[in-house]
């Protein structure tokens, strides 16, 4: 890959909940100005337009899926621009007719380097690479604020402010340094002159944007750091918010799908005789791996596709089971080739020297995403052009996928991104199997078609969080602290952030590595990705070491984190809020865990009561994201991440038998509800370290916090999830 220069790009990135990067690369020279969308609207940068009526329109490239990005990102831009928040209008990028995401490809193609062909499908990976080359230390998702916000919105806002000030100074023939912007105006106190952004927009647009616009100091912020009401909330209390499944088009039909139940299976034969005359049925279509029925409403299509006779051929995976997979993974951990992630000191020698190594093995299952809005995509194939309406975390990657499936150039595909009824990593480009279905169906028919997966199809044809086994060996020194730490874990895919397996603790000798194995089960990112299980593994094992050392688990962690003041502060505040060390009723105890992910450090303390069942009564969470943009949204994200992780810890397990997923719907893949949801208290520390992510960081600590509390309450150590399947006696 050609060397990229930092100067050549203003880079940002982001996609949320899914731990990949969807970024922008653009070239400041060319970024300069986009053609005016209309006579009264002037584009200053890719993200913001200043309108003649003095409103500004901020285009948000990221998908809104509940994390508040439609509000948080424009706040960052408005802050730097000194725009009046009441005059800020917000749009999802492509809705303006200007496809901001196209700039990603353009950044490559019009610049000095061509986009490597192999990376076109996996744009997220392309940006991961590009960002690494540029030494930005980008490691994963939760990236909207960190990358689009910090690198894009802030700079775009600051650049726009500088250009508007310069335009005003030219008009008034004064020194730009004597002018300043405030509340969507440029002012010059010396002469008392002032002009609105709207008045200055046209002149400002002719000024080249500064390459290094000066950013505001955090202590001068007037908007960021305040809890600002999210702009997307009102439409979500009236039913007016439209998701992809709410798209209604003239002559649109609905399609229900039945996939081959076995991974890699195909339709062998079918008989549609029984259903073809049912009311409303339009077409019966075979697509790769599935049968589809279209009808004038979804229920009719769904009844028909389930009633029709279909024979599937199971293919090569008909004997695959997760039970056998776990056996294979365990064997590989014993005898397989270990690829090292980290070797520090000489762990092997230290472990050989110790008389009594401490060992433990942990296991986590496959997990489904189970977004509330089942997978769906509306597609219309007309005159060799394809139009899509879909909720996606990666509009450009999804568009590229659709173009490939339709066998047309990307320019022939128009993608209308819709708000997502949940993402969590399910709706990224390479997991677009539902988009593929919609494209295949659309190419068969001459009407717009809305393809909707039932919950059962959604659960059984997901791209799952990988099942993983992790084996630890440690040696303690005379003081009870770990002298050596070895962790070998299994990797069946999507492990990219190797550092997720590194303990934060001061341990002289470490050896961390993986054994890889391929499975037929499709895997992908799942909220917090590797951290979702590495957090459980590391924070369980450190708890076990504390027990062996006969030291309080909180004190044990604090001792091993003496060189990490941010961790210390987070742990101490959490302990204080949770009342660590205070007496509790019988069989009720606290458990602690701390995980840094996506640049944010989060400690969680669970209060758990164990009777016949496990009752998680309370979670106290303390997070240090460096800096808070919108505290109310941040709190909601931490609460959300906790309940997402807790649902998985308590109930989540996808099992495969005879090549097919056993779980079908919420009764056998349960979700936490109000009755079982703990009280959650969230506190923040703003250490002013580099800003961290928020969408995923609440998830990683919660499983270990709960199982550590169960151990404290009962003496029973749970080394496998979910908790509901484990014996507590």
């Amino acid at each position, binding site marked *: 890959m050609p060397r990229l220069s930092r100067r050549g790009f203003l880079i940002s990135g982001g996609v949320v909940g899914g731990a990949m990067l969807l970024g922008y690369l653009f070239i400041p020279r060319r970024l300069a100005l986009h053609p005016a969308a209309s006579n009264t609207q002037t584009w200053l940068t890719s993200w913001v337009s200043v309108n003649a009526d003095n409103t500004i329109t901020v285009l948000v490239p990221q998908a809104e*899926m*509940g*994390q*508040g990005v439609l509000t948080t990102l424009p706040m960052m831009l408005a802050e730097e621009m000194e725009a009046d928040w009441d005059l800020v209008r917000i749009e999802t990028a492509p809705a303006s007719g200007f496809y901001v995401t196209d700039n990603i490809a353009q950044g490559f193609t019009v610049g000095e380097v061509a986009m490597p062909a192999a990376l076109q499908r996996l744009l997220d990976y392309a940006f991961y690479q590009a960002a690494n080359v540029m030494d930005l230390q980008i490691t994963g998702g939760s990236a909207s604020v960190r990358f689009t916000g910090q690198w894009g919105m802030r700079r775009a806002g600051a650049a726009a402010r500088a250009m508007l000030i310069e335009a005003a100074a030219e008009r008034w023939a004064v020194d730009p340094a004597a002018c300043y912007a405030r509340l969507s105006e440029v002012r010059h106190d010396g002469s008392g002159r002032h002009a609105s952004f709207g008045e200055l927009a046209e002149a400002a647009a002719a000024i080249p944007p500064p390459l290094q616009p000066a950013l505001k100091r955090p202590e001068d912020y007037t908007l960021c750091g305040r809890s600002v*009401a*999210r702009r*997307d*909330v*009102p*439409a*979500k*209390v*009236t*039913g*007016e918010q*439209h*998701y992809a*499944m*709410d798209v*209604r088009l003239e002559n649109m039909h*609905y399609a229900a799908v039945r996939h081959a139940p076995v991974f890699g299976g195909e339709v062998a034969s079918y008989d549609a005789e029984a259903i073809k005359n049912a*009311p409303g049925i339009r077409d019966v279509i075979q697509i790769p791996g599935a049968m589809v029925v279209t009808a*004038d*409403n*979804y*229920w*009719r299509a*769904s009844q028909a596709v389930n009633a029709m006779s279909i024979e599937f051929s199971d293919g090569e995976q008909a004997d695959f089971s997760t039970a056998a997979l776990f056996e294979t993974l365990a064997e590989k951990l014993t005898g397989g080739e270990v690829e090292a992630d980290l070797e520090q000191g000489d762990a092997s020698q230290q472990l050989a020297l110790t008389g009594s190594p401490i060992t433990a093995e942990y296991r986590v299952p496959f997990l489904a995403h*189970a*977004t*509330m*809005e*089942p997978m769906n995509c509306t597609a219309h194939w007309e005159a060799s052009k394809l139009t899509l309406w879909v909720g996606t975390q990666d509009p450009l990657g999804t568009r590229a996928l659709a173009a490939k499936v339709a066998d047309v150039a990307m320019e022939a595909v128009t993608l209308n991104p819709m*708000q997502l*009824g*949940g*993402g*969590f990593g399910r709706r990224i480009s390479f997991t677009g199997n539902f988009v593929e279905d919609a494209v295949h169906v659309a190419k068969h028919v001459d009407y717009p078609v809305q393809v*909707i997966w*039932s*919950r059962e199809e959604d659960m059984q044809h997901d791209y799952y969080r990988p099942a993983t086994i992790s084996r630890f060996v440690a040696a303690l020194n005379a003081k009870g602290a770990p002298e050596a730490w070895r962790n070998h874990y299994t990797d069946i895919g999507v492990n990219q952030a190797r550092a997720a397996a590194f303990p934060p603790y001061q341990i002289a000798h470490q050896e961390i590595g993986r054994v890889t194995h391929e499975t037929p089960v499709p895997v992908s990112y799942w909220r917090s990705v590797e951290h979702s299980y590495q957090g459980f593994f590391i924070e369980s094992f450190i708890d076990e070491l504390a027990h062996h050392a006969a030291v309080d688990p909180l004190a044990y962690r604090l001792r091993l984190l003496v060189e990490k003041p941010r961790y210390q502060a987070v742990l101490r505040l959490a302990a204080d809020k949770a009342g660590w060390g205070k007496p509790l009723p019988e069989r009720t105890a606290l458990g602690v865990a701390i995980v840094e992910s996506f640049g944010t450090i989060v400690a969680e303390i669970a209060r758990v009561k164990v009777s016949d069942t496990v009752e998680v009564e309370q979670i106290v969470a303390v997070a240090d994201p460096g800096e808070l943009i919108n505290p*109310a*949204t941040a709190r*909601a994200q931490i*609460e*959300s991440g*906790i*309940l*997402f992780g807790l649902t998985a810890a308590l109930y989540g397990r996808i099992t495969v038998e005879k090549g097919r997923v056993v779980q079908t*719907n*919420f*009764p056998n893949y349960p*979700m*936490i*509800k*109000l*009755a079982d*949801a703990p*009280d*959650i208290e969230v506190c923040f520390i703003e250490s002013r370290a580099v800003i961290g992510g928020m969408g995923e960081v609440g998830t990683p600590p919660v499983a270990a916090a709960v199982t550590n509390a169960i151990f404290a309450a009962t003496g029973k150590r749970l080394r496998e999830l979910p908790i509901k399947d484990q014996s507590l006696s």
Partner: protein
Amino acid sequence: MAITFILNGRETAVDVEPEMPLLWVLRDVLNLTGTKFACGIGACGACTVQLNGQAARSCVLPVSAVTGAEVTTIEGLAEYDGLNPLQLAWIEHQVPQCGYCQSGLLMAVSALLNKNPAADTEELRQAVTNICRCGSYEAVKRAVQSLTEKAEAADA
């Protein structure tokens, strides 16, 4: 034969199979898309509407079962002069995240509060069994608490 019922205060007639679930009549026949499909088996509550004031899961409710009844959907929750207090509390406490389950959640909570305007958090937890995958439950508790406190103050 047409099936008639009162939908958000208006007499409505549809001519479909009697066993078609109300959800799909609302969404695909009448194009009222505020009511959501999520599980199809009455397990999650995203499709909750009110049937004569009671919360009902429309994905498992044959349309014939609502003949002559009053059906209220999220589109009918607002009052003639604007959003109702529950919706305002939802905005004040910024309850929705992705928002997909919120229509059903609002219909379930409003049915509870119609029955018992001073319902406490424990009653809420037992009565409302809707799933929110974004985990908005803390915000739900805060929003409902703000309303029930007002109701209690008004009673006192």
